[in-house]
Protein backbone atom coordinates (compact mmCIF):
# COMPACT_ATOMS: atom_id res chain seq x y z
CA UNK A 1 0.00 0.00 0.00
CA UNK A 2 1.91 3.01 -1.16
CA UNK A 3 1.07 6.40 -2.44
CA UNK A 4 -1.86 5.94 -4.81
CA UNK A 5 -0.34 7.87 -7.71
CA UNK A 6 1.98 5.05 -8.62
CA UNK A 7 -0.91 2.65 -8.66
CA UNK A 8 -3.14 4.81 -10.80
CA UNK A 9 -0.36 5.47 -13.27
CA UNK A 10 0.41 1.83 -13.49
CA UNK A 11 -3.20 1.18 -14.30
CA UNK A 12 -3.24 3.85 -16.96
CA UNK A 13 -0.06 2.58 -18.49
CA UNK A 14 -1.25 -0.98 -18.55
CA UNK A 15 -1.81 -2.32 -22.00
CA UNK A 16 0.74 0.01 -23.57
CA UNK A 17 4.07 -1.47 -24.59
CA UNK A 18 7.08 -0.20 -22.63
CA UNK A 19 8.30 1.52 -25.79
CA UNK A 20 5.19 3.57 -26.34
CA UNK A 21 5.19 4.52 -22.67
CA UNK A 22 8.76 5.70 -23.07
CA UNK A 23 7.82 7.65 -26.17
CA UNK A 24 4.94 9.41 -24.40
CA UNK A 25 7.22 10.30 -21.54
CA UNK A 26 9.93 11.53 -23.87
CA UNK A 27 7.45 13.74 -25.71
CA UNK A 28 6.68 15.49 -22.44
CA UNK A 29 10.36 16.30 -21.81
CA UNK A 30 10.86 19.60 -23.60
CA UNK A 31 14.60 19.87 -22.88
CA UNK A 32 15.24 16.47 -24.40
CA UNK A 33 13.21 17.33 -27.49
CA UNK A 34 15.14 20.55 -28.03
CA UNK A 35 18.39 18.64 -27.64
CA UNK A 36 17.21 16.07 -30.17
CA UNK A 37 16.33 18.91 -32.56
CA UNK A 38 19.83 20.36 -32.23
CA UNK A 39 21.36 16.94 -32.93
CA UNK A 40 19.23 16.36 -36.02
CA UNK A 41 20.18 19.83 -37.24
CA UNK A 42 23.90 19.03 -36.79
CA UNK A 43 23.59 15.75 -38.64
CA UNK A 44 21.80 17.48 -41.53
CA UNK A 45 24.57 20.07 -41.69
CA UNK A 46 27.19 17.33 -41.81
CA UNK A 47 25.35 15.56 -44.63
CA UNK A 48 24.63 18.66 -46.73
CA UNK A 49 27.94 20.42 -46.05
CA UNK A 50 28.81 21.11 -49.72
CA UNK A 51 25.50 22.85 -50.31
CA UNK A 52 25.81 25.17 -47.36
CA UNK A 53 29.07 26.86 -48.03
CA UNK A 54 30.42 28.49 -51.20
CA UNK A 55 34.06 27.70 -50.37
CA UNK A 56 35.77 24.37 -50.88
CA UNK A 57 37.14 22.61 -47.85
CA UNK A 58 40.89 22.65 -48.52
CA UNK A 59 41.22 25.66 -50.79
CA UNK A 60 44.43 27.43 -49.79
CA UNK A 61 44.85 31.15 -50.40
CA UNK A 62 48.01 32.21 -48.61
CA UNK A 63 47.44 35.93 -49.15
CA UNK A 64 44.21 35.57 -47.17
CA UNK A 65 45.57 33.88 -44.05
CA UNK A 66 44.42 34.75 -40.51
CA UNK A 67 41.58 36.94 -41.73
CA UNK A 68 39.32 37.83 -38.81
CA UNK A 69 35.59 37.06 -39.19
CA UNK A 70 33.68 39.16 -41.68
CA UNK A 71 34.59 40.22 -45.18
CA UNK A 72 33.02 37.23 -46.92
CA UNK A 73 34.43 34.77 -44.37
CA UNK A 74 31.82 34.28 -41.66
CA UNK A 75 34.35 32.94 -39.16
CA UNK A 76 37.53 34.21 -40.78
CA UNK A 77 40.34 32.15 -42.25
CA UNK A 78 43.09 29.98 -40.82
CA UNK A 79 46.87 29.81 -41.16
CA UNK A 80 46.56 28.65 -44.79
CA UNK A 81 43.79 31.07 -45.70
CA UNK A 82 41.11 28.38 -45.65
CA UNK A 83 37.58 29.38 -44.69
CA UNK A 84 37.01 28.41 -41.02
CA UNK A 85 33.23 28.19 -41.32
CA UNK A 86 33.53 25.76 -44.23
CA UNK A 87 36.01 23.59 -42.36
CA UNK A 88 33.82 23.68 -39.28
CA UNK A 89 30.88 22.31 -41.26
CA UNK A 90 32.97 19.61 -42.86
CA UNK A 91 34.59 18.97 -39.48
CA UNK A 92 31.26 17.84 -38.09
CA UNK A 93 31.48 14.83 -40.42
CA UNK A 94 34.71 13.61 -38.83
CA UNK A 95 33.64 14.35 -35.27
CA UNK A 96 30.18 12.80 -35.53
CA UNK A 97 31.40 9.72 -37.37
CA UNK A 98 34.13 9.13 -34.81
CA UNK A 99 31.48 9.33 -32.10
CA UNK A 100 29.24 6.84 -33.89
CA UNK A 101 31.89 4.34 -34.99
CA UNK A 102 33.76 4.36 -31.68
CA UNK A 103 30.51 3.75 -29.82
CA UNK A 104 29.54 0.94 -32.18
CA UNK A 105 32.87 -0.79 -31.56
CA UNK A 106 32.50 -0.40 -27.82
CA UNK A 107 28.89 -1.58 -28.00
CA UNK A 108 29.69 -4.73 -29.95
CA UNK A 109 32.57 -5.65 -27.64
CA UNK A 110 30.77 -4.61 -24.46
CA UNK A 111 27.44 -6.28 -25.17
CA UNK A 112 28.96 -9.52 -26.43
CA UNK A 113 31.45 -9.93 -23.60
CA UNK A 114 29.02 -8.67 -20.96
CA UNK A 115 26.32 -11.06 -22.18
CA UNK A 116 28.68 -14.03 -22.19
CA UNK A 117 29.99 -13.21 -18.72
CA UNK A 118 26.53 -12.65 -17.30
CA UNK A 119 24.80 -15.61 -18.89
CA UNK A 120 27.40 -18.34 -18.65
CA UNK A 121 29.06 -17.25 -15.41
CA UNK A 122 31.83 -19.44 -14.04
CA UNK A 123 35.17 -19.44 -15.80
CA UNK A 124 34.11 -17.23 -18.73
CA UNK A 125 32.72 -14.68 -16.32
CA UNK A 126 35.86 -14.76 -14.24
CA UNK A 127 38.20 -14.20 -17.15
CA UNK A 128 36.11 -11.49 -18.78
CA UNK A 129 35.61 -9.63 -15.53
CA UNK A 130 39.34 -9.70 -14.75
CA UNK A 131 39.98 -8.21 -18.21
CA UNK A 132 37.37 -5.59 -17.40
CA UNK A 133 39.15 -4.90 -14.09
CA UNK A 134 42.41 -4.45 -15.96
CA UNK A 135 40.89 -2.04 -18.46
CA UNK A 136 39.13 -0.10 -15.72
CA UNK A 137 42.50 0.54 -14.09
CA UNK A 138 44.03 2.03 -17.20
CA UNK A 139 44.26 5.75 -17.25
CA UNK A 140 41.87 6.18 -20.17
CA UNK A 141 43.28 9.17 -21.92
CA UNK A 142 46.94 8.29 -21.39
CA UNK A 143 46.36 4.82 -22.81
CA UNK A 144 44.60 6.43 -25.75
CA UNK A 145 47.65 8.61 -26.32
CA UNK A 146 50.00 5.63 -26.12
CA UNK A 147 47.90 3.58 -28.52
CA UNK A 148 47.38 6.45 -30.93
CA UNK A 149 51.11 7.14 -30.92
CA UNK A 150 51.80 3.50 -31.78
CA UNK A 151 49.14 3.19 -34.48
CA UNK A 152 49.96 6.56 -35.95
CA UNK A 153 47.55 9.48 -36.18
CA UNK A 154 44.48 8.99 -38.37
CA UNK A 155 40.72 9.12 -38.07
CA UNK A 156 40.57 5.32 -37.92
CA UNK A 157 43.03 5.25 -35.06
CA UNK A 158 40.79 7.55 -33.08
CA UNK A 159 37.76 5.39 -33.76
CA UNK A 160 39.54 2.19 -32.83
CA UNK A 161 41.22 3.55 -29.72
CA UNK A 162 38.11 5.21 -28.25
CA UNK A 163 36.02 2.15 -29.00
CA UNK A 164 38.54 -0.32 -27.70
CA UNK A 165 39.10 1.51 -24.41
CA UNK A 166 35.47 2.21 -23.51
CA UNK A 167 33.74 -1.17 -23.75
CA UNK A 168 34.42 -2.43 -20.19
CA UNK A 169 31.87 -0.14 -18.54
CA UNK A 170 29.17 -1.33 -20.91
CA UNK A 171 30.21 -4.95 -20.38
CA UNK A 172 29.78 -4.45 -16.65
CA UNK A 173 26.35 -2.88 -17.05
CA UNK A 174 25.12 -5.59 -19.44
CA UNK A 175 26.46 -8.33 -17.19
CA UNK A 176 24.72 -6.90 -14.13
CA UNK A 177 21.45 -6.52 -16.02
CA UNK A 178 21.63 -10.05 -17.33
CA UNK A 179 22.43 -11.47 -13.91
CA UNK A 180 19.26 -9.92 -12.55
CA UNK A 181 17.09 -10.87 -15.52
CA UNK A 182 18.44 -14.42 -15.64
CA UNK A 183 16.81 -15.20 -12.32
CA UNK A 184 13.32 -14.20 -13.42
CA UNK A 185 10.62 -16.71 -14.21
CA UNK A 186 10.22 -16.12 -17.90
CA UNK A 187 13.81 -17.16 -18.51
CA UNK A 188 13.19 -20.31 -16.50
CA UNK A 189 10.19 -20.87 -18.71
CA UNK A 190 12.22 -20.41 -21.89
CA UNK A 191 14.78 -22.86 -20.60
CA UNK A 192 12.09 -25.34 -19.65
CA UNK A 193 10.80 -25.11 -23.23
CA UNK A 194 14.20 -26.31 -24.37
CA UNK A 195 15.49 -23.18 -26.07
CA UNK A 196 19.19 -22.98 -26.77
CA UNK A 197 21.32 -20.63 -24.70
CA UNK A 198 22.17 -18.40 -27.62
CA UNK A 199 18.48 -18.12 -28.53
CA UNK A 200 17.60 -17.26 -24.96
CA UNK A 201 20.27 -14.58 -24.81
CA UNK A 202 19.43 -13.01 -28.15
CA UNK A 203 15.66 -13.20 -28.14
CA UNK A 204 14.75 -13.05 -24.46
CA UNK A 205 17.51 -11.46 -22.43
CA UNK A 206 19.02 -8.81 -24.68
CA UNK A 207 15.68 -7.12 -25.49
CA UNK A 208 15.24 -6.62 -21.76
CA UNK A 209 18.63 -4.97 -21.42
CA UNK A 210 18.01 -2.82 -24.48
CA UNK A 211 16.90 0.21 -22.49
CA UNK A 212 20.17 0.33 -20.58
CA UNK A 213 22.20 -0.26 -23.72
CA UNK A 214 20.41 2.50 -25.64
CA UNK A 215 21.05 5.02 -22.89
CA UNK A 216 24.67 4.04 -22.56
CA UNK A 217 25.27 4.12 -26.29
CA UNK A 218 23.74 7.58 -26.58
CA UNK A 219 25.99 8.92 -23.86
CA UNK A 220 28.92 6.96 -25.33
CA UNK A 221 28.71 8.97 -28.57
CA UNK A 222 29.44 12.07 -26.50
CA UNK A 223 32.46 10.29 -25.05
CA UNK A 224 33.68 9.43 -28.54
CA UNK A 225 33.41 13.04 -29.68
CA UNK A 226 35.30 14.25 -26.62
CA UNK A 227 37.96 11.58 -27.21
CA UNK A 228 38.41 12.71 -30.80
CA UNK A 229 38.70 16.31 -29.65
CA UNK A 230 41.39 15.50 -27.10
CA UNK A 231 43.48 13.23 -29.31
CA UNK A 232 43.26 15.50 -32.34
CA UNK A 233 44.12 18.49 -30.18
CA UNK A 234 47.36 16.74 -29.27
CA UNK A 235 47.99 15.96 -32.94
CA UNK A 236 47.32 12.23 -32.48
CA UNK A 237 43.92 12.15 -34.12
CA UNK A 238 42.36 13.18 -37.43
CA UNK A 239 45.08 14.33 -39.80
CA UNK A 240 45.15 17.51 -41.84
CA UNK A 241 43.98 18.46 -44.38
CA UNK A 242 40.78 16.66 -43.33
CA UNK A 243 39.17 18.94 -40.75
CA UNK A 244 37.69 17.77 -37.47
CA UNK A 245 36.57 19.85 -34.53
CA UNK A 246 39.46 18.45 -32.52
CA UNK A 247 42.21 19.23 -35.00
CA UNK A 248 40.77 22.70 -35.55
CA UNK A 249 41.07 23.22 -31.80
CA UNK A 250 44.72 22.26 -32.16
CA UNK A 251 45.26 25.76 -33.60
CA UNK A 252 45.29 26.85 -29.96
CA UNK A 253 48.46 24.81 -29.46
CA UNK A 254 50.24 27.79 -30.99
CA UNK A 255 50.39 30.51 -28.39
CA UNK A 256 50.09 33.21 -31.06
CA UNK A 257 46.85 31.76 -32.40
CA UNK A 258 45.53 31.10 -28.88
CA UNK A 259 45.87 34.79 -28.09
CA UNK A 260 45.42 36.51 -31.40
CA UNK A 261 43.17 34.29 -33.51
CA UNK A 262 40.39 33.05 -31.19
CA UNK A 263 38.10 32.58 -34.23
CA UNK A 264 40.22 29.58 -35.15
CA UNK A 265 39.61 27.56 -31.99
CA UNK A 266 36.63 29.02 -30.13
CA UNK A 267 33.96 27.99 -32.71
CA UNK A 268 34.97 24.31 -32.88
CA UNK A 269 35.16 24.22 -29.08
CA UNK A 270 31.69 25.68 -28.80
CA UNK A 271 30.33 23.21 -31.36
CA UNK A 272 31.83 20.27 -29.47
CA UNK A 273 30.30 21.67 -26.31
CA UNK A 274 26.86 22.12 -27.85
CA UNK A 275 26.89 18.66 -29.43
CA UNK A 276 28.00 16.91 -26.26
CA UNK A 277 25.54 18.95 -24.20
CA UNK A 278 22.67 17.98 -26.50
CA UNK A 279 23.65 14.32 -26.41
CA UNK A 280 23.87 14.37 -22.63
CA UNK A 281 20.51 16.10 -22.19
CA UNK A 282 18.83 13.79 -24.68
CA UNK A 283 20.48 10.73 -23.12
CA UNK A 284 19.30 11.81 -19.69
CA UNK A 285 15.78 12.24 -21.04
CA UNK A 286 15.96 8.78 -22.58
CA UNK A 287 17.10 7.31 -19.28
CA UNK A 288 14.15 8.86 -17.46
CA UNK A 289 11.74 7.76 -20.19
CA UNK A 290 13.01 4.18 -20.23
CA UNK A 291 13.33 3.74 -16.48
CA UNK A 292 10.50 1.43 -15.41
CA UNK A 293 10.99 2.40 -11.77
CA UNK A 294 10.35 6.06 -12.49
CA UNK A 295 6.62 6.66 -12.59
CA UNK A 296 5.82 10.26 -12.95
Amino acid sequence: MGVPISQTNRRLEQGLSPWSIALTRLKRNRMALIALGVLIFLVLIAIFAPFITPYSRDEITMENKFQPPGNGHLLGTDDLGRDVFTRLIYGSRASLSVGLVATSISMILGVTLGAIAGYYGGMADNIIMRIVDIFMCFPFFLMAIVMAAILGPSIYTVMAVSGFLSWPILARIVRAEILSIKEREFIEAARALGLKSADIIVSHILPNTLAVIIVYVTLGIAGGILGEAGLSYLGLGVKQPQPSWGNMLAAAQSFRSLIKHPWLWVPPGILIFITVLSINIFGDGLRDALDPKLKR
Partner: protein
Amino acid sequence: MGTLLRVRNLITSFNTSEGQVVAVNGVDIDIKEGRVLGVVGESGCGKSVTSLSIMRLLPKSNGIIAAGIIEYNGQDIVQLSEAEMRNIRGNEIAMIFQEPMTALNPVLPVGEQIGEALEIHQSLTLKSRENRLRCIELLKMVGIPRAEEIVDEYPHQLSGGMRQRVMIAIALSCHPRLLIADEPTTALDVTIQAQVLDLIRQLKKQLGMAIMFITHDLGVIAEMADDVIVMYAGKIVEEADTYTLFTNPRHPYTQGLLASRPDKMKRDEKLHCIRGMVPSPLDMPPGCAFAPRCDHCLPACYQAMPRLKDIEPNHRIRCWLAEQGCNN
Protein backbone atom coordinates in the same frame (compact mmCIF):
# COMPACT_ATOMS: atom_id res chain seq x y z
CA MET B 1 -14.80 9.71 27.78
CA GLY B 2 -13.78 12.63 25.61
CA THR B 3 -13.20 12.53 21.90
CA LEU B 4 -9.48 12.64 21.22
CA LEU B 5 -9.56 12.83 17.46
CA ARG B 6 -12.40 14.18 15.40
CA VAL B 7 -12.06 14.17 11.63
CA ARG B 8 -14.76 15.77 9.52
CA ASN B 9 -15.16 15.65 5.75
CA LEU B 10 -11.47 14.94 5.10
CA ILE B 11 -10.61 15.20 1.42
CA THR B 12 -7.04 14.36 0.43
CA SER B 13 -5.87 14.49 -3.14
CA PHE B 14 -2.72 14.02 -5.16
CA ASN B 15 -1.57 15.96 -8.16
CA THR B 16 -0.34 13.59 -10.83
CA SER B 17 0.58 14.04 -14.43
CA GLU B 18 -2.74 12.39 -15.32
CA GLY B 19 -4.71 14.91 -13.28
CA GLN B 20 -5.94 15.20 -9.73
CA VAL B 21 -6.58 11.99 -7.86
CA VAL B 22 -8.85 12.12 -4.83
CA ALA B 23 -7.60 9.36 -2.53
CA VAL B 24 -9.72 10.17 0.50
CA ASN B 25 -13.10 11.66 -0.18
CA GLY B 26 -15.06 13.03 2.74
CA VAL B 27 -14.09 10.80 5.64
CA ASP B 28 -15.40 11.35 9.18
CA ILE B 29 -13.64 9.67 12.06
CA ASP B 30 -14.06 9.85 15.82
CA ILE B 31 -11.59 8.25 18.16
CA LYS B 32 -12.32 8.40 21.86
CA GLU B 33 -9.68 8.54 24.55
CA GLY B 34 -8.29 5.05 25.15
CA ARG B 35 -10.36 3.30 22.44
CA VAL B 36 -9.14 1.22 19.54
CA LEU B 37 -10.55 2.07 16.13
CA GLY B 38 -9.98 -0.49 13.41
CA VAL B 39 -9.86 0.68 9.80
CA VAL B 40 -10.30 -2.04 7.16
CA GLY B 41 -10.26 -2.03 3.40
CA GLU B 42 -8.44 -3.28 0.33
CA SER B 43 -5.18 -1.81 -0.91
CA GLY B 44 -5.74 1.63 -2.35
CA CYS B 45 -8.98 2.33 -0.49
CA GLY B 46 -7.43 5.36 1.19
CA LYS B 47 -6.81 4.00 4.68
CA SER B 48 -3.08 4.72 4.71
CA VAL B 49 -3.60 8.12 3.12
CA THR B 50 -6.08 8.92 5.88
CA SER B 51 -3.49 8.11 8.52
CA LEU B 52 -0.76 10.09 6.72
CA SER B 53 -3.17 13.04 6.50
CA ILE B 54 -3.71 12.92 10.25
CA MET B 55 0.07 12.95 10.75
CA ARG B 56 0.39 15.55 7.98
CA LEU B 57 3.07 13.39 6.40
CA LEU B 58 1.70 13.32 2.85
CA PRO B 59 4.40 13.46 0.17
CA LYS B 60 5.21 17.15 0.02
CA SER B 61 5.58 17.33 -3.71
CA ASN B 62 2.02 16.42 -4.62
CA GLY B 63 -0.18 15.39 -1.67
CA ILE B 64 -2.65 17.93 -0.27
CA ILE B 65 -5.40 17.98 2.30
CA ALA B 66 -7.95 19.70 0.08
CA ALA B 67 -10.71 20.12 2.63
CA GLY B 68 -11.94 19.08 6.04
CA ILE B 69 -10.91 19.44 9.63
CA ILE B 70 -8.77 17.15 11.75
CA GLU B 71 -9.40 18.08 15.34
CA TYR B 72 -6.98 16.67 17.85
CA ASN B 73 -7.86 17.48 21.43
CA GLY B 74 -10.17 20.24 20.27
CA GLN B 75 -7.58 21.86 17.98
CA ASP B 76 -7.71 21.74 14.17
CA ILE B 77 -4.28 20.45 13.23
CA VAL B 78 -4.77 21.15 9.53
CA GLN B 79 -4.30 24.81 10.40
CA LEU B 80 -1.17 24.31 12.52
CA SER B 81 2.21 25.53 11.35
CA GLU B 82 4.81 22.92 10.48
CA ALA B 83 6.69 23.71 13.72
CA GLU B 84 3.56 23.27 15.85
CA MET B 85 2.79 20.05 13.99
CA ARG B 86 6.26 18.70 14.79
CA ASN B 87 5.43 19.14 18.46
CA ILE B 88 2.49 16.81 18.02
CA ARG B 89 4.19 14.21 15.83
CA GLY B 90 5.88 11.53 17.88
CA ASN B 91 4.78 13.28 21.05
CA GLU B 92 0.97 13.38 21.04
CA ILE B 93 0.31 11.23 17.99
CA ALA B 94 2.80 8.52 17.07
CA MET B 95 2.85 6.10 14.21
CA ILE B 96 4.06 2.58 13.45
CA PHE B 97 4.58 1.61 9.83
CA GLN B 98 4.11 -1.56 7.90
CA GLU B 99 7.65 -2.44 6.85
CA PRO B 100 9.91 -2.99 9.85
CA MET B 101 12.73 -3.98 7.50
CA THR B 102 12.93 -0.56 5.87
CA ALA B 103 11.34 1.75 8.40
CA LEU B 104 14.46 2.04 10.56
CA ASN B 105 17.48 4.04 9.44
CA PRO B 106 20.20 1.52 8.57
CA VAL B 107 23.15 3.72 9.53
CA LEU B 108 22.04 4.72 13.04
CA PRO B 109 22.11 2.46 16.11
CA VAL B 110 18.64 1.67 17.47
CA GLY B 111 19.32 3.54 20.69
CA GLU B 112 19.94 6.74 18.80
CA GLN B 113 16.74 6.33 16.83
CA ILE B 114 14.70 6.03 20.01
CA GLY B 115 16.75 8.68 21.81
CA GLU B 116 16.09 11.26 19.12
CA ALA B 117 12.41 11.35 19.93
CA LEU B 118 13.23 11.70 23.64
CA GLU B 119 15.59 14.53 22.83
CA ILE B 120 13.10 16.67 21.00
CA HIS B 121 10.01 15.98 23.02
CA GLN B 122 11.39 15.37 26.51
CA SER B 123 14.60 17.42 26.38
CA LEU B 124 16.82 14.49 27.23
CA THR B 125 20.09 15.24 25.44
CA LEU B 126 20.87 12.49 22.98
CA LYS B 127 24.23 11.40 24.34
CA SER B 128 23.24 11.74 27.99
CA ARG B 129 23.06 8.93 30.52
CA GLU B 130 19.37 9.45 31.27
CA ASN B 131 18.53 9.27 27.61
CA ARG B 132 20.36 6.00 27.26
CA LEU B 133 18.79 4.52 30.39
CA ARG B 134 15.36 5.54 29.15
CA CYS B 135 16.05 3.88 25.77
CA ILE B 136 17.05 0.66 27.49
CA GLU B 137 13.95 0.84 29.66
CA LEU B 138 11.78 1.29 26.56
CA LEU B 139 13.46 -1.64 24.81
CA LYS B 140 12.74 -3.77 27.87
CA MET B 141 9.16 -2.56 27.90
CA VAL B 142 8.62 -3.84 24.34
CA GLY B 143 10.10 -7.17 25.36
CA ILE B 144 13.54 -7.01 23.80
CA PRO B 145 16.06 -9.27 25.56
CA ARG B 146 19.62 -8.03 26.18
CA ALA B 147 18.35 -4.45 25.89
CA GLU B 148 21.68 -3.06 27.19
CA GLU B 149 23.46 -4.52 24.15
CA ILE B 150 20.73 -4.10 21.55
CA VAL B 151 20.62 -0.38 22.27
CA ASP B 152 23.97 -0.01 20.49
CA GLU B 153 23.22 -2.36 17.63
CA TYR B 154 22.17 -1.47 14.12
CA PRO B 155 18.79 -2.42 12.64
CA HIS B 156 20.29 -4.99 10.26
CA GLN B 157 21.46 -6.99 13.26
CA LEU B 158 17.87 -7.53 14.38
CA SER B 159 15.10 -9.78 13.07
CA GLY B 160 11.91 -8.37 11.58
CA GLY B 161 9.90 -8.93 14.74
CA MET B 162 12.60 -7.28 16.83
CA ARG B 163 12.69 -4.31 14.51
CA GLN B 164 8.95 -3.88 14.76
CA ARG B 165 9.35 -3.92 18.55
CA VAL B 166 11.95 -1.17 18.20
CA MET B 167 9.49 0.77 16.05
CA ILE B 168 6.90 0.40 18.79
CA ALA B 169 9.44 1.57 21.37
CA ILE B 170 10.13 4.66 19.26
CA ALA B 171 6.42 5.36 18.85
CA LEU B 172 5.66 4.95 22.55
CA SER B 173 8.79 6.69 23.83
CA CYS B 174 6.99 9.95 24.56
CA HIS B 175 3.69 8.47 25.78
CA PRO B 176 1.50 9.52 22.87
CA ARG B 177 -2.23 9.74 23.49
CA LEU B 178 -2.95 8.40 20.03
CA LEU B 179 -1.05 5.64 18.27
CA ILE B 180 -1.61 5.08 14.57
CA ALA B 181 -0.60 1.57 13.58
CA ASP B 182 -0.56 1.18 9.79
CA GLU B 183 -0.58 -2.57 9.06
CA PRO B 184 2.02 -3.15 11.80
CA THR B 185 2.00 -6.92 11.45
CA THR B 186 1.36 -7.49 7.76
CA ALA B 187 5.02 -7.98 6.88
CA LEU B 188 5.73 -10.37 9.76
CA ASP B 189 5.59 -14.15 10.09
CA VAL B 190 2.37 -15.45 11.57
CA THR B 191 3.84 -16.43 14.96
CA ILE B 192 5.64 -13.10 15.25
CA GLN B 193 2.42 -11.37 14.23
CA ALA B 194 0.62 -12.80 17.22
CA GLN B 195 3.42 -11.75 19.55
CA VAL B 196 3.44 -8.20 18.25
CA LEU B 197 -0.35 -7.93 18.49
CA ASP B 198 -0.18 -9.20 22.06
CA LEU B 199 2.48 -6.64 22.82
CA ILE B 200 0.42 -3.77 21.40
CA ARG B 201 -2.61 -4.91 23.36
CA GLN B 202 -0.68 -5.24 26.56
CA LEU B 203 1.01 -1.84 26.15
CA LYS B 204 -2.34 -0.28 25.45
CA LYS B 205 -3.64 -1.62 28.74
CA GLN B 206 -0.51 -0.37 30.49
CA LEU B 207 -0.28 3.10 28.92
CA GLY B 208 -3.91 3.74 28.05
CA MET B 209 -3.44 5.41 24.68
CA ALA B 210 -6.03 5.36 21.91
CA ILE B 211 -5.15 3.39 18.79
CA MET B 212 -6.12 3.75 15.18
CA PHE B 213 -5.40 0.31 13.82
CA ILE B 214 -5.21 0.04 10.04
CA THR B 215 -5.28 -3.38 8.44
CA HIS B 216 -6.77 -5.39 5.63
CA ASP B 217 -6.96 -8.42 7.89
CA LEU B 218 -10.40 -8.84 9.48
CA GLY B 219 -9.01 -11.41 11.91
CA VAL B 220 -6.70 -8.82 13.37
CA ILE B 221 -9.56 -6.34 13.64
CA ALA B 222 -11.66 -8.85 15.54
CA GLU B 223 -8.84 -9.28 18.02
CA MET B 224 -7.81 -5.67 18.45
CA ALA B 225 -10.56 -3.17 17.77
CA ASP B 226 -13.41 -1.72 19.82
CA ASP B 227 -14.96 0.01 16.82
CA VAL B 228 -14.49 -0.54 13.11
CA ILE B 229 -14.83 1.49 9.96
CA VAL B 230 -14.78 -0.14 6.56
CA MET B 231 -13.40 1.95 3.71
CA TYR B 232 -13.93 1.55 0.00
CA ALA B 233 -12.57 3.82 -2.74
CA GLY B 234 -11.77 6.72 -0.45
CA LYS B 235 -15.05 6.65 1.48
CA ILE B 236 -16.37 5.03 4.63
CA VAL B 237 -19.02 2.46 3.68
CA GLU B 238 -19.82 0.98 7.05
CA GLU B 239 -19.16 1.92 10.64
CA ALA B 240 -20.07 0.01 13.79
CA ASP B 241 -18.67 -1.48 16.96
CA THR B 242 -16.69 -4.63 16.35
CA TYR B 243 -19.26 -7.05 17.66
CA THR B 244 -22.07 -5.58 15.57
CA LEU B 245 -19.95 -5.45 12.47
CA PHE B 246 -19.00 -9.09 12.66
CA THR B 247 -22.41 -10.37 13.69
CA ASN B 248 -24.61 -8.10 11.62
CA PRO B 249 -22.72 -6.61 8.65
CA ARG B 250 -25.12 -4.60 6.50
CA HIS B 251 -23.17 -3.15 3.63
CA PRO B 252 -22.79 -5.60 0.72
CA TYR B 253 -19.05 -4.85 0.61
CA THR B 254 -18.56 -5.69 4.29
CA GLN B 255 -20.63 -8.81 3.82
CA GLY B 256 -18.44 -9.76 0.89
CA LEU B 257 -15.26 -9.16 2.90
CA LEU B 258 -16.50 -11.28 5.77
CA ALA B 259 -17.66 -14.05 3.47
CA SER B 260 -14.32 -14.22 1.68
CA ARG B 261 -12.35 -15.07 4.81
CA PRO B 262 -10.91 -18.53 4.25
CA ASP B 263 -11.23 -19.50 7.95
CA LYS B 264 -15.02 -19.32 7.58
CA MET B 265 -14.96 -21.97 4.90
CA LYS B 266 -15.95 -25.54 5.16
CA ARG B 267 -13.84 -28.09 3.31
CA ASP B 268 -14.56 -28.52 -0.39
CA GLU B 269 -16.62 -25.37 -0.46
CA LYS B 270 -15.72 -22.86 -3.15
CA LEU B 271 -13.85 -19.82 -1.84
CA HIS B 272 -16.08 -16.77 -1.94
CA CYS B 273 -14.71 -13.69 -3.60
CA ILE B 274 -15.93 -10.24 -4.51
CA ARG B 275 -15.98 -10.09 -8.30
CA GLY B 276 -14.30 -7.31 -10.24
CA MET B 277 -11.61 -4.89 -9.20
CA VAL B 278 -11.32 -1.72 -7.15
CA PRO B 279 -12.01 1.13 -9.60
CA SER B 280 -9.19 3.52 -10.44
CA PRO B 281 -9.48 6.83 -8.59
CA LEU B 282 -9.00 8.50 -11.98
CA ASP B 283 -11.96 6.67 -13.38
CA MET B 284 -14.63 6.52 -10.69
CA PRO B 285 -18.04 5.25 -11.75
CA PRO B 286 -20.82 7.75 -11.14
CA GLY B 287 -22.96 6.86 -8.16
CA CYS B 288 -21.85 4.24 -5.69
CA ALA B 289 -18.26 3.19 -6.32
CA PHE B 290 -19.05 -0.36 -5.34
CA ALA B 291 -22.08 -0.71 -7.62
CA PRO B 292 -20.32 -2.52 -10.49
CA ARG B 293 -19.19 -5.25 -8.08
CA CYS B 294 -22.31 -5.42 -5.95
CA ASP B 295 -24.68 -8.38 -5.96
CA HIS B 296 -27.63 -6.35 -4.65
CA CYS B 297 -27.27 -3.46 -7.02
CA LEU B 298 -30.28 -1.20 -7.70
CA PRO B 299 -30.78 1.27 -10.56
CA ALA B 300 -30.28 4.10 -8.07
CA CYS B 301 -26.79 2.86 -7.32
CA TYR B 302 -25.56 4.07 -10.72
CA GLN B 303 -27.13 7.51 -10.34
CA ALA B 304 -25.74 9.03 -7.16
CA MET B 305 -23.59 8.27 -4.16
CA PRO B 306 -25.70 7.34 -1.11
CA ARG B 307 -25.17 9.08 2.24
CA LEU B 308 -23.64 7.45 5.27
CA LYS B 309 -26.86 6.69 7.12
CA ASP B 310 -27.63 5.52 10.65
CA ILE B 311 -29.48 2.26 10.51
CA GLU B 312 -29.38 1.57 14.22
CA PRO B 313 -27.58 3.31 17.11
CA ASN B 314 -23.83 3.42 16.39
CA HIS B 315 -24.18 1.60 13.11
CA ARG B 316 -24.02 3.44 9.82
CA ILE B 317 -23.78 2.29 6.23
CA ARG B 318 -23.47 4.06 2.92
CA CYS B 319 -25.87 2.13 0.69
CA TRP B 320 -29.04 2.72 -1.33
CA LEU B 321 -30.49 -0.40 0.25
CA ALA B 322 -30.50 1.39 3.58
CA GLU B 323 -31.67 4.68 2.07
CA GLN B 324 -34.68 3.01 0.55
CA GLY B 325 -35.44 1.09 3.67
CA CYS B 326 -35.44 -2.29 1.98
CA ASN B 327 -33.16 -4.33 4.12
CA ASN B 328 -31.53 -7.35 2.67
